[in-house]
């Protein structure tokens, strides 16, 4: 059995987001492997270490920096990478991303080769939470998202999914998409020999033409949605202190919440 992890390169969580006009200023951003993807890769590698999986493939779409994210995944213990890089992809939305990833996946043998498809529940930059389910839909296979436990048993998997106030336990037939959340595992700190080895592991590069995708099917042109503008959240204002007698204070507070904050 083989596993594939779809990963994304994202800005570090502590990045100070700055805008140039209404576009993201990417000059001072440090990119990392999306933390949720790390859970996915760690899980796949653990399955490999447990002898359940023979190969872990990592697929990422993105500019050249996506390679670093792939290398990080290889350092955790994945075997090889696929990197889809093409200038035309800039501005692609979730569904386009899903389609491109599916084409790359098919090029690697698709469901004939890979039965466990692992994702991070969400990418911490775009935060659409949608690509894993879209890919499941495009491939016609089930998806269990938000999982905290994954047991593989022959052709079946038992996955525990977190829901509000409890857990759902799923038994699914493979192949299946799984989307990892925090709690699935504690990603390892890769050893230096693993990091060094990762530098020598193969990464296959595809452009969209390698995948047989026309350029008008991707990027802004091919997408259903378009980002029109980025705005920063309002600067945090200094707190307002309401003083006086209790009755007076309450009245003023209610007035504030109604008229200024528009909460009640």
């Amino acid at each position, binding site marked *: 059995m083989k596993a594939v992890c779809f990963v994304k390169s994202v800005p570090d969580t*502590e990045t*100070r987001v700055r805008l140039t006009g209404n576009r993201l200023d990417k000059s*001072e951003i440090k990119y990392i492997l999306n933390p949720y993807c790390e859970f996915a890769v760690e899980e796949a590698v653990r399955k490999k270490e447990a002898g359940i999986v023979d190969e872990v493939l990592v697929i990422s779409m993105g500019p050249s920096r996506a390679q670093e994210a792939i290398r990080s995944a290889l350092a955790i213990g994945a075997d090889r990478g696929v990197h889809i890089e093409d200038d035309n992809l800039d501005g692609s939305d979730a569904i386009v991303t899903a389609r491109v990833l599916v084409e790359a996946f098919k090029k690697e043998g698709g469901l004939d080769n890979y039965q466990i498809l692992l994702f991070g529940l969400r990418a911490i930059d775009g935060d659409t939470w949608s690509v894993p389910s879209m890919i499941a839909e495009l491939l016609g296979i089930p998806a269990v998202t938000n999982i905290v436990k994954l047991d593989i048993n022959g052709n079946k998997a038992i996955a525990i999914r977190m829901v509000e106030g409890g857990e759902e336990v799923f038994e699914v037939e493979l192949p299946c998409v799984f989307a990892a959340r925090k709690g699935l595992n504690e990603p390892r*700190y890769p050893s*230096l*020999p693993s990091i060094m080895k990762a530098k020598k592991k193969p990464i296959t590069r595809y452009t969209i033409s390698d995948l047989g995708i026309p350029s008008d099917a991707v990027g802004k042109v091919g997408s259903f949605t378009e980002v029109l503008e980025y705005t920063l959240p309002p600067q945090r204002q200094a707190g307002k202190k309401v003083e006086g007698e209790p009755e007076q204070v309450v009245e003023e507070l209610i007035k504030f919440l109604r008229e200024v904050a528009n909460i009640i």
Partner: protein
Amino acid sequence: MEIVEVTRGVWWNVPTLFKIMVYLLAIVSAYLIYKGIKERYRLWKRGKVEERKPDIGTAIREVLTHSRILSEKKPGLMHALIFFGFFVLFIGTLIVAVDADTPLHIYHGKFYLIVSFLLEIAGLVLIVGLIIALRRRYVEKPERLKPETSDDYVVLWLLLSVAVTGFIVEGVRISAQGFPSFEKVSFVGYALGKIFNFLGLGGSKTHKFFWFIHAILSFGFISYIAYSRKLMHIIVTPWNIAYRDPRPYGVVDRIPDIEEQESFGLVRIEDLTWKQLMDLDACMGCGRCQDACPAYSTGKPLTPKGIIRKLRDHMEERFISGRSEEECGPYEHIEDEVIWSCTTCAACMEKCPARIEHIDKIVEMRRYLTLMEGRIPEEMALALRNMENNFNPWGVGFASRADWARDMGVSTMSEKGEAEYLLWVGCAGSFDDRYKKVIKCLVEILRASGVDFAILGVEEKCCGDSARRLGNEYLFEMFAMENVEVLKNYNVKKIITACPHGYHVLKNEYPQYGWSGEVYHHTEFILNLIKNGKIKLKKGIGYKTVYHDSCYLGRHNGIYNEPREILREIVPAAKYLELPRNRENGFCCGAGGGRMWLEERIGKRINIERSEEVASTGAELIVTACPFCLTMFEDGIKVIGKEEAILRKDIAEIVREAMEN
């Protein structure tokens, strides 16, 4: 009047057979000692190559003055008595040998009388020392001497029996020679002779018997030296002192060509260098390191002596018992928690009379855990990732490194082009809200003194101290190389920093990467400003004040006086107190060696132990000169409920408040 020759006659009453036996024993024991040393030497040679130059002068000085040994009075005195007693007797034996085996018959007349008297004293001194030692073993039983081996006892009893039989032989000889009056200089022997005479045992037969016993015991002792772990120190320790690392404590070496290596840190015992292996043999187990160790004394499983002993046992099981590296590894008896407990405070190294270097071995073991195994505490992984992604262990976005400086208008090197001094702000000064205040004070002090300085701003990255000491040499090297490049870019020659860890790394470790220059800790720099009249201070802190020595400032870099001199300018003498453990004996805050980023799960927290010590003096103000120490006190003083009673300040804050200009 009968002319008596004033000498004892070295071979008096010794049958030829015994005489031959002595020479044979001398040859045999010389051979055994040679063989024993050669065997240990062979073990050390299995370590890696390391360039070290011997400093024989220091070794001789430390042995003869006992400077380190006497830093603890009672055990120091015990050792001094045994050593000097033994040493003088050894010289005496050489004199006798010269008299007996060369044409130089020096051992008679006035010289004989003086030497005899001195040897008499030496014998007594030795016996007194041995009795104190036996008392320690049998009565006092200090914890630090454990675990004991039979060797510890054999050595003492053997040496005592040599000394006592020596006196008996002398006494019986004097008796058998008819108590010549000049022999009264040998007052112990003379008195013993009288007793043996009274018991009817004062004749030449008894003398022959005891002479034989004394000779056997003496050569037995000599032969045993190279086979006794304890006695081995007589030979190895002076060499170990001579070959000590002359650099400040805890300077860690590079892993050469790290990208080309396949194994990192102490994987197999052969990964240690010959000097590191010799260290293992230089330990006689006095346990001073253990008493001084902040981890041990707060209930952690680490004992520096224990680590050295376990590594030595392991060296022997590998190289002597011949077990393969697959059969036994160094970590079978050293748990991870032991290795993570160390704060690299160097209290052990400061105390070790043999100058054993503990920190480098701990770092080698941490390199193994971190780089080879990735077997690290969870919170450590977080700190390392923070350093990797945002170039500071707090993990605050790197772009905000110089935010603190914005309201103050501090220029960066890139804005200014050049400045006489670089102010190395460090991660704490840049990201820790508490220490930002200290850096602001320092900036005001520098400005008021007219110092031309700039900062690197976002071009500054973590110095890598914690990464290196937590064993992540790869990450450290990345920081070192990038920082060195920036320093060279701006042609930086002089650096001021408020962080002892940055100070240590910049000053003592960055030369490994090609940058060296003048590095000043802010205590050094401020003191100079005061001395040059650049800042005027008013005396008058009303608080009872204590100063806590940062390990990386004090023990590692010898900066003890500067902060105290500054405080003397501000704090009235009557208000200044010293902590019970100060200067070389300073007690770590608990945050060194990367422990700042690790949870302290076992035993008592070190900062609480130290905070209680501060409180015990009745201090109202604890002054530090290190961001880690300050954090540990901010926390520790609160935990012990003294938040209102004891103020916590960095020395820069004290100076800023006391400044008149």
